[in-house]
């Protein structure tokens, strides 16, 4: 085999390999579209984060705007501290409401941001004050049972 | 002519427990062709490895052109090997290259010569061994004798000062054998080099070499010029030259008594 055909084949091989890597990066891994650009960090405290995990999506109005970076336990407040990044293109008012929500009934949990009405926006590194913990299904059910029981209790007394 | 190119002094060598060479002292004068002979497996090839620095002696000294081979570092050793050529028993041609590329290999690795000059040099070397027409063949397409001549062309590519031949006559037909023998002599004289031939082919060697050493059981047992060897009375050399089955070199590997072994030791 002559040098030039060999070089040609190797060229084809390497080009195909790089094309495959690009395909995986762009088309499959979506490095471009949903990737978060020039992110800034925000923090929020929750009584209960439920099943929220690091790298879970942060959404506002259902659109991906960031990702959860880190989840810690704050031993002074006895609360969970969630650090997350938000795309630099999006600014949120200081009275933004942070919820831990579930996509669908049993889907993955994510951090939802509901913007408030303030003019001032959250600066990088700031903390969101208004939060709502995850809805824990067991608590919800036991609450429901308790309410039902309380409702039905007076009946036998009669 | 006072200072020989290669000098071995009391060289001892062993692979682990197995002693191969006990006490070898010999020298290869400049410009001469020297043969080292001995039965199969007596450590002749090891001797070449010692000279080339691929093995290190356990005792004694190997000096090539005044330098102690064992003390050379890697770079110095490689620098010395560029001035040596070794022809391996079966040629050891690179099977993935053409004959031309095989001969060009040392030139391309060690020199920055332009392609045209390398082309000319390679064709000259191939012409010297009579195989200029085979330049485009692959080693697999060559006969044993041709392969060895190509390997010879590769060995002399860098015009070495010392040529080493490991069993150059093995497995060749009489014609190829004569051709190789004549080439060894002619190339040595043309290059002004010195040559060592390790072989057990006594008849061919007697015709082309200047001096012969006989090695047996790790020692030099006899030496001399071809004329001296032909007329020697030494029983070992006599057995070797005349290819006698039994003599100082026994036919039987050392063993216990034959009769005793057959009767299970009861006799």
């Amino acid at each position, binding site marked *: 085999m002559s*040098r030039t055909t060999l070089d040609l084949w190797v060229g084809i091989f390497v080009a195909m390999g790089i094309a495959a890597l690009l395909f995986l990066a762009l088309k499959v891994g979506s490095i471009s579209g949903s990737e978060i650009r020039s992110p800034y960090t925000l923090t929020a405290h929750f009584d209960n984060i439920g099943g929220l995990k690091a790298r879970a999506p942060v959404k506002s109005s259902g659109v991906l705007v960031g990702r959860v970076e880190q989840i810690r336990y704050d031993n002074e407040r006895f609360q969970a501290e969630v650090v997350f990044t938000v795309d630099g293109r999006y600014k949120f008012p200081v009275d933004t409401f942070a919820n831990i929500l579930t996509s669908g009934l049993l889907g993955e949990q994510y951090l939802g941001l509901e913007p408030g009405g303030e003019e001032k926006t959250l600066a990088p590194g700031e903390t969101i004050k208004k939060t709502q913990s995850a809805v824990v299904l067991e608590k919800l059910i036991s609450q429901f049972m308790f309410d039902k029981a309380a409702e039905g209790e007076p009946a036998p007394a009669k | 002519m006072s200072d020989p190119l290669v000098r071995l002094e009391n060289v001892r060598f062993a692979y682990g427990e197995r002693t191969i060479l006990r006490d070898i002292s010999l020298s290869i004068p400049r410009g001469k062709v020297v043969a080292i002979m001995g039965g199969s497996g007596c450590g002749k090839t090891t001797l070449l490895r010692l000279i080339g620095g691929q093995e290190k002696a356990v005792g004694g000294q190997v000096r090539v052109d005044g330098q102690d081979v064992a003390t050379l570092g890697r770079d110095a050793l490689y620098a010395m*090997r560029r001035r040596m050529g*070794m022809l*391996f028993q079966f040629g050891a041609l690179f099977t993935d290259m053409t004959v031309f590329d095989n001969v060009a290999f*040392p030139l391309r*690795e*060690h020199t920055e010569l332009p392609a045209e000059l390398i082309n000319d040099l390679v064709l000259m070397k191939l012409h010297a061994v009579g195989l200029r027409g085979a330049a485009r063949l692959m080693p697999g397409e060559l006969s044993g004798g041709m392969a060895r001549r190509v390997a010879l062309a590769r060995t002399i590519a860098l015009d070495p000062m010392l040529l080493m031949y490991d069993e150059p006559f093995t497995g060749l037909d009489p014609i190829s054998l004569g051709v190789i023998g004549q080439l060894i002599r002619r190339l040595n004289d043309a290059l002004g080099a010195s040559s060592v031939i390790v072989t057990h082919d006594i008849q061919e060697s007697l015709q082309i070499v200047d001096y012969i050493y006989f090695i047996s059981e790790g020692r030099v047992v006899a030496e001399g010029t071809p004329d001296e060897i032909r007329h020697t009375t030494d029983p070992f050399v006599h057995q070797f030259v005349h290819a006698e089955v039994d003599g100082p070199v026994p036919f039987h590997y050392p063993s216990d008594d034959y009769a005793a072994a057959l009767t299970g030791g009861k006799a």
Partner: protein
Amino acid sequence: MGGLRKLGSVAIEVVWQLGFIARFFWLILVYSGQSFTRLNLTIRELYFSGVLSLLIILVSGLFVGLVLGLQGYEILQRYGSSDSMGTMVALSLLRELGPVVAGLLFASRAGSAVTAEIGLMKVTEQLKAMDMMAVSPIARVVAPRFWGGVISMPLLAAMFSTMGIFGGWLIGVVFIGIDDGAFWSQMQAAVDFRYDVLNGVIKSCAFGVAVSLIAVFQGYDCVPTAEGVSRAITRTVVSSALAILALDFVMTSFMFRGL
């Protein structure tokens, strides 16, 4: 007693081998200069380990993807989430199957060939002849083959995954009729570039180093007889497979925990 002694000798043997391999690896790195200054040496090896492995990698990738598509659909359908088929196919290929299966195929296709070639060069004294010509066989023969394998492996794994995803797409979208948009968008939403794609590439690079190192080492270290070469080839395939699977476990446990 005998068993313990046997265990001891095996353990010593393994440690020796590891030490040899580590030293050999170091030598390869030291003598790698030529592989990059004389690029045509490495390009030649890229041809032998990369281009010649292309067909088996592409075909196997396609079949693995087709099977993943069929099995994935069958399972996901039970939970009414056959739309996530793209996600399942892509994640299993990118994280595990791509690097691992491509690595195993690469070991048996290219690794064994490299071992055989170097082993035969040793048998025919080509390596010794090269050394006598003051050309280091590690720089001239071993290092280019090593780097050829190291470069080929991630490219082959990426092609394997790509073909697999294409196979999954064929089954899901073309044959079963999952919506094309759902297939891709679900996949893109779930696959993270750094977490899934890049970790998979890192894995395939590690496997490339492991397989290439084992292949050149076994060839260089083999007993120079016909039997020795055949044993070395077997050892290359077996220990490459073990190394890939063990490395995969270790790397997976570091990369994909604590999501």
